């Protein structure tokens, strides 16, 4: 059962009709519905291409949050071998919103860190919808330090609505944990590359995405605040999220123009959730080419180039 977004309703109708016709034909062998059904398929496919070729920023947010979109764990399972999760911040607990561990990418040992949102009610609760607590950032800091010591490149997969706004998280120093994680990203002498696979939610994303290279999937978003949050503050009306999404310039395409993203990874037609395997392999290709790029940079220049990239950032606006 496909999950349709609100703007996909017309599409849902056509695809539903085609499905219905075929179901009817299965019960009655004399009926020939295939011509009609294929015509509907064609119509649906055209509509899908049309819809996704010009997604508004708000629709991009919806696609980026699509429940069936491949998540961190899907990428890890498909792209890495010998995945060995490592747990805990050594101070308080293990945060399941953050996955981290050793793995091999094309035989090469790397450290993987990412936000996991979960795929059903149970797992979403386990992973706290991808909203990390201080322990999650502190686990990431620990793993980045380890990677640094053993010369392993770090690959971060970003997909979070933001850091968790909870009582305990605040008491245990949410802001300090994020600040230290960002600081650690800037200190490690190994290549750090980051892929925004879904939502890049504010400080919770920066803590992992302060990287030598940042790639974004075509329909992913990365923003200082959620469109709903921005709308409720600046428009005093959280229903103005469409306007806010527009104003915030949070799409991968805008971030590429602003120099915050280094490249945009095209998604299969209709978004990564329509063809996860294809999307995941595109991400894999990007990881390998970004790793190859960073292998060209002398190791003693990794920190300096990362720093100067962020110092220069914002030197020009959208006008170039």
């Amino acid at each position, binding site marked *: 059962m496909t999950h349709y977004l609100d703007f996909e309703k017309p599409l849902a109708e056509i695809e539903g009709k085609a499905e219905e016709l075929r179901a009817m034909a299965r019960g009655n062998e004399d009926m020939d519905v295939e011509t009609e059904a294929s015509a509907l398929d064609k119509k649906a496919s055209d509509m899908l291409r049309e819809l996704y070729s010009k997604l508004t920023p708000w629709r991009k947010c919806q696609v980026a949050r699509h429940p069936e979109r491949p998540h961190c764990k899907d990428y890890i399972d498909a792209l890495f071998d010998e995945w060995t999760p490592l747990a805990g911040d050594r101070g308080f607990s293990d945060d399941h919103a953050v996955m981290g561990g050793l793995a091999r990418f094309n035989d090469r040992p790397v450290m993987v860190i990412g936000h996991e949102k979960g795929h059903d009610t149970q797992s979403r609760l386990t992973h706290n919808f991808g909203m990390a607590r201080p322990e999650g950032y502190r686990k990431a800091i620990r793993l980045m330090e380890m990677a640094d010591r053993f010369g392993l490149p770090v690959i971060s997969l970003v997909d979070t609505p933001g850091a968790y706004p909870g009582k305990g998280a605040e008491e245990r120093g949410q802001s300090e944990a994020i600040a230290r994680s960002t*600081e650690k990203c800037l200190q490690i002498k190994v290549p750090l590359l980051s892929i925004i696979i879904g939502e890049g939610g504010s400080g919770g994303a920066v803590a992992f995405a302060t990287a030598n290279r940042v790639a974004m999937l075509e329909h992913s978003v990365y923003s200082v605040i959620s469109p709903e949050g921005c709308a409720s503050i600046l428009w005093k009306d959280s229903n103005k999220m469409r306007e806010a999404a527009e104003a915030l310039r949070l799409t991968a395409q805008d971030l590429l123009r602003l120099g915050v993203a280094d490249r945009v990874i095209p998604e299969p037609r209709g978004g990564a959730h329509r063809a996860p395997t294809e999307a995941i392999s595109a991400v894999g290709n990007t990881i390998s080419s970004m790793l190859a790029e960073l292998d060209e940079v002398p190791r003693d220049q990794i920190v300096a180039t990362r720093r100067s990239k962020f110092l220069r950032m914002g030197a020009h606006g959208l006008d170039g």
Partner: protein
Amino acid sequence: MNWITNYVRPRINSIFSRREIPENLWSKCDSCGTMLFHREISDNLNVCTNCGHHMNITPRDRFHALFDGGVFSEISVPEPVNDPLHFRDQKRYPERMRAAQKATGEKEAMLVARGEIGRTPIVAAAQDFTFMAGSMGMYVGNAIIAGIEEAVRLGRPFVLFSAAGGARMQEGILSLMQMPRSTVAIQMLREAGLPYIVVLTHPTTGGVTASYAMLGDVQIAEPGSLICFAGPRVIEQTIREKLPEGFQRAEYLLEHGMLDRVTDRRELREELIVILRMLMQLPPATWGDLPPPGPEELPEDGAADQVQAAPNPALEDAPRKE
């Protein structure tokens, strides 16, 4: 909410309050409601003389009270791109900027200066909450970088007074990028072996807390300041329960190990002097009424374009340790 509450009532109130308080000579403590004479407040660094509540103080007033003899030189900050995203909510971003500039008389939300405190040379930056809630955008990032570069060049410690509602939404992702940008600057300071002291003031929240405001070698907060990542309202909406009294206030953070000290604004200057002189391996400060510092001795390329601020007469008798 309607025309009467939004428009008529404020108009009526403003007419009456103007009559009650001629030329704003009096103001009311935000906390205990005591009427305070303006001179009384400014002499007390905007701390209520009745209840000790710390009210907002502008960076300029703070610097006048902080630096020896009220003398400091502003450090010029490179101008960022104006309205990089062409942001428009109910108003255009440049309009909001102009309104803030007019209301505060300042160019942006951060002031950076060098000078001496207790004869200890420092570079200081202070965020202005009255300027678009002190929000962190490109300018604030540039200000921190400029201040730290100056500190490194002169071999001085860097003291930062934070106050912000968070990142400046009107600069979108570029405001978020000030988190790593400012962090790079702090690393340059660390590598130069210079102290970084953060004084968190009311309120310091969001992306500001989650970057440069939490990375100090020494973390001091003013009493009662709200210091958090997510604000109390957001948390109450998320967890749907009432938060304890004093949650996310400076004293609460001190108790939870997030701060080194909570210090009254009136004692902050001498505390900074004491700490900085130890960290800089300088002899103890000479306390007492020192004459204002002479002309600055700066390295050759010391910027000659800086303006020497005149001492603020209102603050001449600001409290000092005798």
